[in-house]
Every structure is written in C-alpha cells, then in structure tokens.
C-alpha cells in the first residue's frame, strides 16, 4: 500500500519536531499522515504494527509523553513537540536507567512465553509499559481490563498478564 505521507518540502506539508526514542527529529509531514504511518513509512520504525488501523486492535500502541495511545488514530502534526517511544525505544528506556539489555517487560514476555506469532507484541509491550506508568492496575482482573485494548489472536493473554504481573511485582518499569 502506498502511503502519501508528504514528500519533504512538498506543498501542503508542515514542519514538526518530535523526539522519537530519545532522538530529536525535525520532519516535514502532510497533515493527513497518522503518527503510525509517519513512524512506519517515513522513519522506517516498522516495529509499531498496523493491524486494524481503526483503534480496535492495539497493535499500533506507542507511548506519547509516557502515555499509551493508538498511533493509528492520531495525526502526526497534532503531536508536534511530543516525545514518542516505540517498541524500538523500550530497551533504550531501560538503558537510560543503566540497564544494558532488553526492557524488563520485554524480558518478562520472553520468560513467560507471552506471544506466539508476535504481530501484536510491540503494541502489547508499549501498552504494558503505559499501564505500569499509569499505576491504576493492581490485581490480575485490573491488568486484564486495562489491557483490553490490545487484541492477541494467538490467545497469549494468560501469559501476557503473567509477564506484566511479574514486572509489576519487581517494582514496575519506566
């Protein structure tokens, strides 16, 4: 699928500044470009997945200023000035805290076998980090409810909850 996200400098594009996974970038973007399409089609950050493209599956979940949202339902121009973290940046979030490895939630997903095909996993991971940043989910029921915006057609839900609970019991993660 060809995504018209605006050639740099083309008429109608708007200059925005985003900090993506710690790196500040000045980008010319057409206003109708979603944040998801900007990440995947222009910036080659293809870790963030396009599932339904309508906010129903959660595969496109990223963190904007630490808050999880569906990147398919936001326009890139509207996030001018924001800090974006995608699945590619989770490990560097951990590295910022002196850990030279995967983010704890990534390690926990591996440890708990919290995926099969892996397509939903980047969204699940970003959503998990968002959930822990929010700090409202404590019980397994609350984790399940707070993760209901992320669909896993392989059905790894039980192990996803295990992984999140594990990291939360270790004191959460940013």
């Amino acid at each position, binding site marked *: 699928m060809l995504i018209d996200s605006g050639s740099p400098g083309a008429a109608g594009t708007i200059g925005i500044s985003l900090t993506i996974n710690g790196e500040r970038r000045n980008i010319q973007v057409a*206003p109708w470009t979603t944040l998801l399409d900007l990440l995947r089609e222009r910036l080659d950050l293809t870790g963030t997945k396009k599932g339904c493209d309508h*906010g129903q599956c959660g595969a496109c979940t990223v963190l904007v200023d630490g808050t999880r949202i*569906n990147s398919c*339902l936001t326009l890139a*121009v509207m996030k*001018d000035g924001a800090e974006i973290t995608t699945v590619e940046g989770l490990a560097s979030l951990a590295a910022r805290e002196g850990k030279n490895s995967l983010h704890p939630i990534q390690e926990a997903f591996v440890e708990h076998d919290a995926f099969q095909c892996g397509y939903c996993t980047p969204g699940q991971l970003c959503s998990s980090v968002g*959930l822990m940043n929010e700090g409202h989910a404590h019980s397994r*029921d609350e984790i399940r*409810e707070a993760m209901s915006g992320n669909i896993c057609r392989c059905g790894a839900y039980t192990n996803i909850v295990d992984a999140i609970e594990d990291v939360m019991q270790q004191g959460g993660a940013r």
Partner: protein
Amino acid sequence: MNRFDYVRPNTVAEAVQALGADPAARFIAGGTNLIDLMKYDVERPGRLVDITRLPLRDIEERDGGLRIGALVTNATVAYDSAVKERYPLLSSAILAGASAQLRNAASTGGNLLQRTRCYYFYDTATPCNKREPGTGCSAIGGVNRIHAILGASEHCIATHPSDMAVALAALEAVVQVSGPNGDRAIPIAEFHRLPGDDPAKDTNLAPGEIIVAVDLPAKSFTTNFTYLKLRDRLSYAFALVSVAAALELDGQTIRTARLALGGVAHKPWRNTEAEALLQGEPATRETFAAAADLILREAKPQSTNGFKIELARRAIVRGLEQAAAGTPQSQSDKRIQ
C-alpha cells in the same frame, strides 16, 4: 483519508474564528472518532482546526461542584481524585467505556461529540439517513441487534455509544459552549437530540459552537450509585444496555432517584417520570420493576433487537438494586452481583 487544511489556534476565540461558518470544517481534539470516520470517508473535512493547544485542560472547583475543561482526557477525569471521591458514578462509567489507549486520547468534549452511529453509518456502500440525508435507513429491517428501542424514528434507529454521557445525564451536568454569538450553557438532557426527521444532527450545538467545559453540579451521589453495562464481550464493547443509577435513601425509603440508560436510544435516555415514581417509595424490587415498566412502556423493538427490552428491564432493576445496596458494579471484576 481526504486532503485538508490544518490550523492550530491557541485560544478559544481563535478556534471559533478558524472554524468560521464553513460546514466542511471540523474541530479535532483526541481524534479517536473523527479520524476513524475520516478513514472510512464518512467524514471528509475541508479544514481541521486542532484545538489541543487551547487552555481547557483543568478540573476546577465551581459553585460547590466541578468544572471539567473540554480537553481533559477521559482517563484524567476517571482517575481524578475529586471526581473519584465526589462523582464515583462518572468515574465508573468512563472506565466502563472504550480501551485504556482511547481513554488516554479522547477528550471530555469529544466524548460528547462522538457521532451517534451504527455499522451502516460507517458503510458508505449502504443508504443511511444520518450520513446521507434522504437515502433511507438500512438498519430498519436490516441487522439491528444493537439498535435503539426508545425514541427512534422511521429515519434512524442508531444509538449514542458514550458511557460518560449516560452518567452525566444522571448527574444533571451542564455543557458550557462558546460560539460566534457568545457563550451559553446547555443542560446535558438538551445537548443530544433524538433523530426525528433530521438524524444527521446528533446535538443541539449551533454551527460554529465549541464545547469549553462540562459542569458537574454540587449534588453528587457517593454511596448509592452504580454504572451497570451489559454488552457482547466483557470489555471494550459498546453497551447493549447500560444503566446509571443514583439514589438518596432515608432508611429504606427513596428520597431522590436518578436513572439514565445507555445503548437504547439516539441519546442518553432519562425518564424523570420514572424517577418521580421511585421517590418516596420503599427501595424494593417491586418498586424498581414498576419504574422499569414505566420507562419501557413506550419501547419499540426492531426486527432482531426485541431482547433488548427485557434486557433493559432487568438491567434497570439490577442497577437500582446495586445502587440501593451501595454495591456499585466493579468495572474490572465483571461478575454482576
């Protein structure tokens, strides 16, 4: 998605001016409904006025109640300590709706202005009076399991999907708007409209008006309330029927009752006659059933949604029982007590 102009004003006055009288221009805040509709070509705005930079993100004390800025996100409202403490019904209703990601993006004003809709509204290959006035209603006689049982018309049987708005109806919130002709306040009961012969209009906002805040009155219900939502799956689904119930009790006698239904009509459905019937009566199953009968007396089924009438009857009784017992529905443990 169609091509459009994009502007990003910094004040309410600039935003109102930027929208102007252009019927093809739209405000955008969270974007969770509008962008979705644009992807289906249901909405094709010529200009988007991005209002996310307007100073409407505060929750303030006002006249003994709270004023919620139009841009406060649904998540921020739901988890706000004053809202949780004083308006737990609102917090509960918001948390019953959408997903965490959507609640993080969606705004208070945008929640009210999400379209009243059904699957035919989204499907541009089918007739729909709401999308294209005069083309007919595909849901009448079509697939209408989720559709309205109250207040519908021969032109449209779609329902308003907001959970937040149902709680606001029970709390008698007031919507503050600003527009080319100044500011005005619209009681929530008059904010959304029934389809009648003009289903393209979901609300009574005048052209060019913008929501700036939602006011919660001082009267809050902190003990005897519930938001009970019944749906096809336990999370992240629209209500088939939902009930916002709030009571004040004198012992076992009902002093005040508020009751609003979601998922059953083109707008949050409140019946003050039923509330009056509850007042002064004992808080018993019989009383609640009488109120349910009164509300559903005028219910009208479509070809495949007749079950919703009985579902609504039972939901009203159960909701009032939960409220009377002071055992509000949990939005994480889904068992209905």
